[in-house]
């Protein structure tokens, strides 16, 4: 909403600097975004009277004028315009003044200069150099200098007078950001009332009046759908004279960002801006059957709108129709013949109240949101329809652009009873935590147009947003000043218990970071094609599909973290970052196949790990996970897995704890890496954080440090090449007595080792907790291990 300060001053006298005005309004709830000096960058433009003018001695086209600019000394100006004669009044840009460049609209600073040897001390100008159009100054000659003698108010002019002031350019437009609940503030009168309340100033608004002529309306109105049209008012204007609007009206429109067109159209726009109520004007000759019907469209009914495009309507749309056809979509836009033309003779003014949701839906469906529809959709006061119509008719008479038939049609089904809110000033203070006296509260409320009656606050109908005590509290608070209310701290201790997950995940993050992994955050939605690309199998039934995605790339909620992580690695690799360690604790979304439609999909958190670069391999990835497991005391088992399409079948392990799968790690399948244009090996891991938490020891318990010495044995074992080291370790552990630690320190195959065999070298540390372990005991324990291994074909290497 752009508010002309000049217009505002018609209702409330604001004589403080605009900055203070903006601040005050912002702090009482009408937020000012910015303000613009409408005359900027124009400078030093005054009225000049041409005293004499003669041909330039050295040019056929140039003239040299002596101009009285009110300083007592004439200035000499050389001009190329051909319409200037001695005695005329013209706008003169003095030396150092600023206008717009008429060719490209850029800013032009006027300097003293010589034109063909003759000094020129300024410039005479036309409307475009003042940032105006021919519509603003219809008497102007587009090809010459603006001759102000043609102005209807020319008698007010005298040399030296500020032209921006005279032409009504001097104004300040204040841009407000109005919240959706205050459609009343999308109007000059609404803001005038707010300004009055904010600055405690009297607001002078008169009920508009018109005289009218007697005569036959030759129009009937019937409202078929009363729930979508609570009020429909119509008036007829005859003997219409289409003309440009007077300056005071045009300049107010201009400051509000609306272009002046002609008196009738300008009146509807003016009233909409002034009262905040959208109106429509129909050319009556196109209202067939002299009948207006407010009804739902029939299905697939067609209408060509003012914008020249045909729309096909559904039965939900509300239309204004004559006896034969729809002539407007209610509250959105008029039909092609409904507008005002230069030859319009009779006009029907519509001032109605349509249902906001219906208007919004229709505007959306036909893809055309208008100033009118956006006002209706916020909700409109039926009582204001009358003010708007009366004001329009008043203006018709004031501007002399037609004769108003005295009779007005008013089909009114609206609620008339004002809203009453139970009032107790203590309750208001209880909501606010304030101590504002009843007198002060009522004073504030009365400034806003509220009245107290029998323990209730009576709400003016224009304030469609006020229904409850809390609404009244806000009214009091915002005028009293939010920042005048104290600041206290509540004394509450939440009864809701914190989940342990949060702390667990935080620790997980710290462990990952300690191992050099950077945390990533990626979008939760991905392309449905990403699964195949990443080798992830997700069925259509499991996938959570967004009905209205921004695009296919973000069409489904991810059921796996791998596509997100692969994108991260792909981007980093392609940005030529040589290596990277990443982790993300992200949510995956999956619909359980058995779920009914109304159940929410499951959301579970996955710790996803991604590594690439020269120093990374499967074991560095595994080490990361082992470190994590150790920190959480999770006893995990790694089993080879060759059936997951995301992973290299020979370099992938499933991780389980107590027989329960908790995750998977491995090198990315070569074809997956290729799909993501990654020319290096990638190592990926997915761990279910819920499972990690389940199998972690919550409170690690202290174990006493050993008191007795340990015994060490090194064993080099020969086994089949295919035998997993993990299997050998398991056999050793199972057979061992008093084994404290088992470490694999070497693996070898090649010369000196039989074909198809490999050597595994282990260091075994034995210890007893209650006494010193003897050599014999250790030898016995070792022999026992070796016997078990021999049974599996694993022998001591000799």
């Amino acid at each position: 909403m752009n508010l002309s300060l000049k217009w505002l001053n018609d209702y409330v006298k604001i004589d403080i600097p605009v900055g203070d005005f903006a601040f005050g309004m912002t702090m009482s709830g009408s937020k000012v975004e910015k303000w613009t000096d409408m005359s900027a960058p124009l400078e030093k433009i005054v009225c000049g009277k041409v005293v004499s003018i003669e041909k330039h001695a050295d040019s056929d086209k140039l003239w040299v004028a002596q101009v009285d600019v009110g300083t007592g000394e004439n200035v000499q100006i050389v001009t190329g315009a051909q319409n200037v004669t001695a005695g005329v009044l013209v706008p003169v840009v003095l030396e150092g003044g600023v206008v717009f460049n008429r060719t490209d609209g850029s800013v032009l600073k006027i300097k003293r200069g010589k034109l063909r040897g003759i000094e020129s001390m300024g410039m005479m100008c036309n409307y475009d150099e003042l940032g105006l159009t021919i519509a603003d100054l219809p008497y102007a000659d587009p090809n010459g200098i603006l001759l102000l003698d043609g102005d209807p108010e020319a008698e007010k002019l005298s040399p030296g007078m500020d032209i921006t002031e005279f032409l009504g350019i001097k104004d300040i437009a204040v841009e407000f950001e109005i919240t959706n609940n205050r459609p009343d503030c999308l109007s000059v009168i609404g803001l005038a009332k707010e300004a009055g309340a904010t600055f405690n100033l009297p607001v002078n608004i008169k009920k508009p009046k018109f005289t009218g002529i007697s005569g036959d309306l030759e129009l009937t109105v019937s409202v078929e759908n009363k729930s979508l049209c609570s009020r429909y008012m119509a008036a007829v204007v005859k003997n219409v004279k289409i003309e440009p609007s007077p300056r005071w009206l045009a300049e107010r429109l201009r400051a509000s960002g609306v272009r002046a067109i002609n008196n009738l159209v300008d009146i509807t726009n003016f009233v909409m801006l002034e009262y905040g109520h959208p109106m429509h004007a129909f050319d009556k000759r196109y209202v067939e059957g002299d009948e207006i019907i407010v009804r739902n469209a029939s299905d697939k009914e067609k209408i060509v709108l003012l914008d020249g495009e045909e729309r096909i309507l559904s039965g939900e749309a509300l239309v204004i129709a004559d006896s034969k056809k729809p002539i407007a979509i209610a509250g959105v836009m008029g039909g092609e013949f409904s507008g005002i033309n230069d030859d319009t003779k009779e006009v029907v003014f519509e001032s109605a109240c349509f249902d906001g949701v219906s208007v919004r839906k229709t505007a959306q469906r036909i893809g055309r949101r208008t100033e009118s529809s956006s006002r209706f959709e916020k909700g409109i006061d039926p009582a204001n329809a009358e003010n708007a119509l009366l004001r329009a008719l008043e203006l018709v008479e004031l501007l002399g652009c037609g004769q108003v038939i005295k009779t007005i049609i008013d089909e009114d089904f609206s609620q008339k009873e004002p809203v009453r809110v139970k009032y107790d000033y203590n309750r208001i203070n209880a909501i606010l935590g304030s101590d504002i006296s009843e007198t002060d509260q009522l004073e504030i409320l009365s400034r806003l147009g509220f009245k107290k009656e029998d323990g209730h606050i009576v709400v003016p109908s224009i304030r469609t947003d006020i229904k409850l005590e809390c609404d009244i509290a806000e009214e009091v608070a915002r005028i009293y000043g939010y920042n005048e209310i104290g600041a206290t701290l509540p004394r509450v201790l939440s009864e809701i218990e914190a989940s342990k997950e949060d702390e667990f995940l935080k620790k997980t993050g710290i462990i990952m970071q300690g191992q050099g992994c950077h945390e990533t955050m990626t979008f939760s939605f991905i392309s449905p094609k990403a699964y195949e690309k990443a080798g992830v199998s997700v069925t259509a039934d499991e996938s959570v599909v967004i009905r209205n995605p921004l695009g296919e790339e973000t069409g489904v909620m991810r059921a796996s973290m791998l596509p997100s992580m692969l994108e991260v690695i792909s981007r980093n690799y392609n940005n030529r970052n040589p290596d990277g360690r990443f982790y993300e604790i992200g949510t995956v979304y999956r619909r359980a196949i058995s779920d009914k439609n109304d159940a929410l999909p499951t959301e579970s958190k996955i710790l996803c790990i991604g590594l690439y670069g020269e120093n990374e391999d499967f074991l560095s990835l595994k080490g990361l996970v082992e470190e994590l497991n150790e920190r959480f005391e999770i006893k995990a088992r790694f089993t080879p897995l060759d059936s997951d399409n995301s992973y290299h079948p020979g370099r992938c392990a499933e991780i389980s704890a107590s027989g329960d799968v908790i995750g998977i790690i491995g090198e990315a399948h070569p074809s997956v890496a290729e799909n993501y244009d990654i020319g290096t090996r990638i190592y990926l891991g997915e761990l279910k954080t819920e499972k990690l938490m389940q199998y972690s020891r919550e409170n690690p318990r202290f174990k006493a440090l050993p008191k007795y010495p340990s015994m060490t044995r090194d064993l080099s074992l020969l086994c089949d090449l295919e035998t997993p080291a993990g299997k050998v370790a398991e056999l050793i552990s199972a057979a061992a007595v008093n084994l404290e630690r088992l470490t694999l320190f070497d693996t070898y195959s090649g010369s000196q080792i039989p074909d198809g065999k490999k050597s595994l070298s282990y260091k075994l540390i034995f210890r007893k907790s209650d006494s010193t372990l003897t050599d014999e005991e250790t030898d016995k324990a070792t022999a026992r291990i070796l016997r078990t291994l021999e049974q599996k074909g694993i022998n001591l290497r000799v």
Partner: protein
Amino acid sequence: MIKETLEKIEQLRDKTLLAIKDSIYVEAVNDIRVKTLGKKGELTTVLKQMGSLAPDERPIIGAKANEVRETVETAILEQTAKLKTLRDEQNIKKETIDVTLPGKRRPLGKSHPLRVVLEDLKDIFRSMGYTVVSGPEIEEVRFVFDMLNTPAGHPARDESDTFYINDDVVLRTQTSSVQIRAMLENKLPIAIISPGRVYRRDEVDATHSPVFHQCEGLVVGKDITFADLKGTLETFMKRLYGNSVRLRFRPHQFPYTEPSAEVDLSCFKCGGNSDTGDSGSAQSGYCSFCKNEGWIEMLGAGVVHPQVLINCGIDPEIYSGFAFGVGLERITMMRYEIDDMRLLYENDIRFLRQF
């Protein structure tokens, strides 16, 4: 005989002292000691032969031998010390390295900047007695809209603004849905924050993302007021930005709170000093952070709308509450002066390493 023996001892002494003096290795000195003073050493051997001496000669020889032993031992100690110092000096010289070479590092990973801010927020609110709660991102319409006083037909519910899974299920547009779930548990009083991901149908650009993060807070109890909200947010902002920041509350509108406010923070870049009340022209000392307004819009807040309490089975005559919501991206981008939101989700390691 005694003379011979004394001469022998003296010769041994002189020879040994010379050898000690000529030694250039600590080990060599040690060898000399063993050779001379050890169990089978030369001096020891001499002493062992004392048995063959006359009883009156023994004390003389004994005294001499002890004197020589002491002399030799002293010489050994001195020479050893000298050689050790020399050796250490040589070793140190040999081992001297270029300490300006770059260090060997095991680099730590970093938290995502959004996480850093989120953890800060959680810490602040936990210390103020709040519980951190979470809830589903794919959420029922009633929890996201209906119960939050955003009825059917409200623009926020449009398909152009909100992602739908089906008519009844959406991607939550704020984490207030978590608050509804918390209120429905009916354990009062409540003091919670619900940080998390939210979704709005905005195209990606420098300041918008269809996925972003919010941290919303809710307090419900007896006698909770707008003033309590003000005090809480002041404490929060001062902990986050330091005690010198000032807050400004402006009236605003949200469906689920009444009265509602938008909260501005005095610009932490220029300290709010460019608050000239004059908008427009860029002068010297222009603050691009607050655009010379002196204030930065930070969050939305308000007193919980009684209808929302009723919807959750809480009696607004007895209980009241306040709620607030703040965008993590906004705080993060301002804290680190990140000028493009897309960087947060691109996860380039050169970006991630910076926080």
